[in-house]
C-alpha cells in the first residue's frame, strides 16, 4: 500500500478503506487515529452532506411519478428489492420441489417414465440482473483484452503496422458502441443460428457491444507502453544480444505492463458504462433492462428503484476498477501504481 497519508490527493480515494482495515486490526493506534480523522471522517462528513443535500433537493422535485426519491425512500426500496429477491428464490425452490415430488410420485406408478425437470421461468430479480450484467461485461472485456493486448504489442513493436492500423483505430475509437448496437444485433441474429444456443442472442449482442468499446483504450495504451520502452534498456538488450523472444519477454512486456493496465482499467470502466446503456436500448437482460423496465412500469416506487440501480451501478463500477488495480499491483513491478 502506498503511504497514503503523504499523498494529499488521496483524500478522495479509497485510502480510507485501508485505514479502516488498519484501525480494525488495532495497529499503530496513534497514527491510525490521525489517519482515521483524515481518511474516514472527512469522506463520511462529505457523504453525510451529500445525503442532506439530496434529501432536501429531492423533496422539492415533483414528477408525474411522485416526489423524487430521497435517501430514505431509496433505502426502503433497497430492502424491498432484497425481500423480492428472497421471495423469488423461495418460489423457485418451491417450484423445483413440487416437480421433484410429482416426478417421484409418477415414477412409483409408472416405472418407465422418464422424469422431466422444467426450468423455472420467473422474472429475474434485481440481483439476478446484476449477475447477468457482470457476466456480460466480463465476457466482453475478456474478448476485447484477448484481441487488444496482442494487437497493441504488435503495433508498438512495428512502426509500419502501427502506421497501417492507426487510422482505423483513430476512426473507430470515438464511435459510441451504441451506434454499433443495431448492426451487432442484426449480425448476431443472422450469423449465430443454432437450435440449441449455448449463449442467448441478447447476451452475445451485449457482450460484443462491450467488446467493441473495450478494444481501443487497451490497444492504444499497450501500443504506447510497448513503443516507449526506455531507449537505454533497449541498448542493454542490444549489448547483451538478447534474442527477439527474450527481449520481448524480459524487457518490452514488463516495461509496458503499467500502461497496459491503464488501458485495461479504462476499458473496463467504459465497458461497464456502455453495457448499461446497451441493455437499456436493446432490452437485453441486465441492470440496464431493470432500469428501463422500472421506467416503463411507472409506479410510485419506480424512481426510487431506479435510484437503487444507479447507486448499485456506481458501486459495482468502483469495485471493478479497484479489482483491476489490485490485479495490477499483483502482476506488475510498478508498486507505486496510484489509487485513483
Amino acid at each position, binding site marked *: 500500500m502506498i503511504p497514503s497519508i503523504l499523498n494529499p490527493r488521496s483524500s478522495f480515494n479509497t485510502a480510507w478503506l485501508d485505514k479502516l482495515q488498519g484501525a480494525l486490526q488495532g495497529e499503530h493506534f496513534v497514527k491510525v487515529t490521525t489517519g482515521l480523522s483524515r481518511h474516514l471522517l472527512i469522506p463520511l462528513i462529505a457523504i453525510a452532506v451529500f445525503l442532506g443535500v439530496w434529501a432536501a433537493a429531492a423533496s422539492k422535485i415533483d414528477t408525474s411519478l411522485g416526489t423524487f426519491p430521497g435517501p430514505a425512500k431509496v433505502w426502503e426500496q433497497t430492502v424491498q428489492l432484497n425481500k423480492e429477491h428472497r421471495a423469488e428464490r423461495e418460489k423457485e425452490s418451491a417450484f423445483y420441489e413440487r416437480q421433484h415430488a410429482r416426478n417421484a410420485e409418477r415414477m412409483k406408478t409408472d416405472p418407465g417414465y422418464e422424469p422431466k425437470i422444467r426450468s423455472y421461468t420467473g422474472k429475474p430479480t434485481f440481483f439476478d440482473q446484476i449477475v447477468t450484467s457482470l457476466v456480460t461485461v466480463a465476457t466482453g472485456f475478456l474478448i476485447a483484452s484477448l484481441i487488444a493486448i496482442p494487437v497493441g504489442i504488435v503495433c508498438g513493436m512495428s*512502426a509500419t503496422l*502501427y502506421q497501417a492500423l*492507426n487510422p482505423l483505430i483513430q476512426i473507430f*475509437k470515438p464511435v459510441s458502441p451504441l451506434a454499433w448496437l443495431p448492426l451487432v444485433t442484426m449480425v448476431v441474429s443472422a450469423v449465430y443460428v443454432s437450435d440449441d444456443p449455448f449463449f442467448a442472442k441478447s447476451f452475445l449482442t451485449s457482450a460484443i457491444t462491450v467488446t467493441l468499446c473495450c478494444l*481501443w*483504450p487497451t490497444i*492504444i*495504451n499497450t*501500443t*504506447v507502453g510497448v*513503443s516507449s520502452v*526506455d531507449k*537505454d*534498456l533497449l*541498448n*542493454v538488450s*542490444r*549489448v*547483451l*544480444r*538478447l534474442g527477439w523472444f*527474450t527481449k520481448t519477454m*524480459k*524487457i518490452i512486456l*514488463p*516495461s509496458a505492463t503499467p500502461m497496459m493496465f491503464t*488501458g485495461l482499467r*479504462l476499458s473496463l470502466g467504459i465497458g461497464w458504462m456502455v453495457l448499461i446503456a446497451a441493455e437499456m436500448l436493446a432490452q437485453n437482460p441486465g441492470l440496464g433492462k431493470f432500469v428501463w423496465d422500472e421506467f416503463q412500469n411507472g409506479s410510485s416506487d419506480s424512481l426510487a428503484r431506479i435510484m437503487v440501480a444507479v447507486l448499485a451501478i456506481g458501486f459495482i463500477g468502483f469495485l471493478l476498477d479497484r479489482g483491476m488495480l489490485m490485479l495490477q499491483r499483483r502482476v*506488475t*513491478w*510498478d*508498486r507505486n501504481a496510484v489509487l485513483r
Partner: protein
Amino acid sequence: MTNYLSLESLSITFDTDNGPLNVLNDISLKIDKGEFISLIGHSGCGKSTVLNIVAGLLQASSGGVLLENREVDEPGPDRAVVFQNHSLLPWLTVYENVRLAVDQVFKKTRSKQQRHDWTVHNLELVHMAHAMNQRPSEISGGMKQRVGIARALAMEPKVLLMDEPFGALDSLTRTHMQDSLMEIQANLNNTVIMITHDVDEAVLLSDRIVMMSNGPAATVGEILKVDLERPRHRLALAANPTYNHYRAEVLHFLHERHAQPDVPVTQPTVEIAEEARKPALKVAAG
C-alpha cells in the same frame, strides 16, 4: 598492428532537419590491453557518440573500430557498457539483473551453478551482495551504479565502456565509487574507456586522458599520459605536484584552448541529433 583496440579515423554525420551535421571528424586512437582511457570534453562534443560507436550501438559514417584486429560493427557483450543512468531493469532484483547478463553470455559454456556463483561473485566485487534480492527502486543511486558495473563486469568484456558512470551521483558517493573502481581495476586490469566531465576523476583513474575538441566535427585535441604510480590515493595525490600539473593541463585545454561558447545556438547537441534520427512515433493516450 599490435594494438588491442583501435579507433581508425572515425567520422560520423547525422542527418538532421537542418541538413547533415558532422559530429565527429577523423578520430583515431590506439588503446593497449589493460589501459584505462578517459574521454573528456565539453557537453555535446560527441564523447558519448564515440563510446556508442565502439559499443556498436551507432555506426560510423566512415572509419571503423578494430578489437584484436577484427572490425566491430554491432553491439555485443565483449564491449559491455555501463550507462550513465544505470539502466537496470526495474522489474528484476539486483541478482536477476546481473544473472540475466550472465545467463545470456555464458548459457552454453557454464553450468547453472557456475552461473549463479559467477553472479554472486560479481556482486561481491562491487560490495552489493547484501542487496541481492532488492529491486533497483529500493536501493540508492550509487548502489544502482555498482550493480550496473557488476552487470558489465560479469560479461567478462574485452573492453569496458563507461558513459559518465558517476555523473548522476553526488560528489561524496562519486569519490567512493571512484575508489571502488580503482580497487576493481587493480584486480582485474580491464581495458576501460570512460567518459567523464570531471577533471579530478579523469586524472585520478586514467592511464591516458583523451581531450576532445568542441563539436561540430569534434576530434581528438590532445592526449595526456598520466604517469602516476598505482595504487593511487586521492589524499596523497592532493599535494602531489605532478598530479596538480596534470589537472592544470586538462583545465587549460578545456577552458582556454577549447572554451565552450556561451550559447551554442548553431550547435545542436548529439542527443538532439540522435532524437531526430529516430522515426517519430506519436500516439495519443486514450
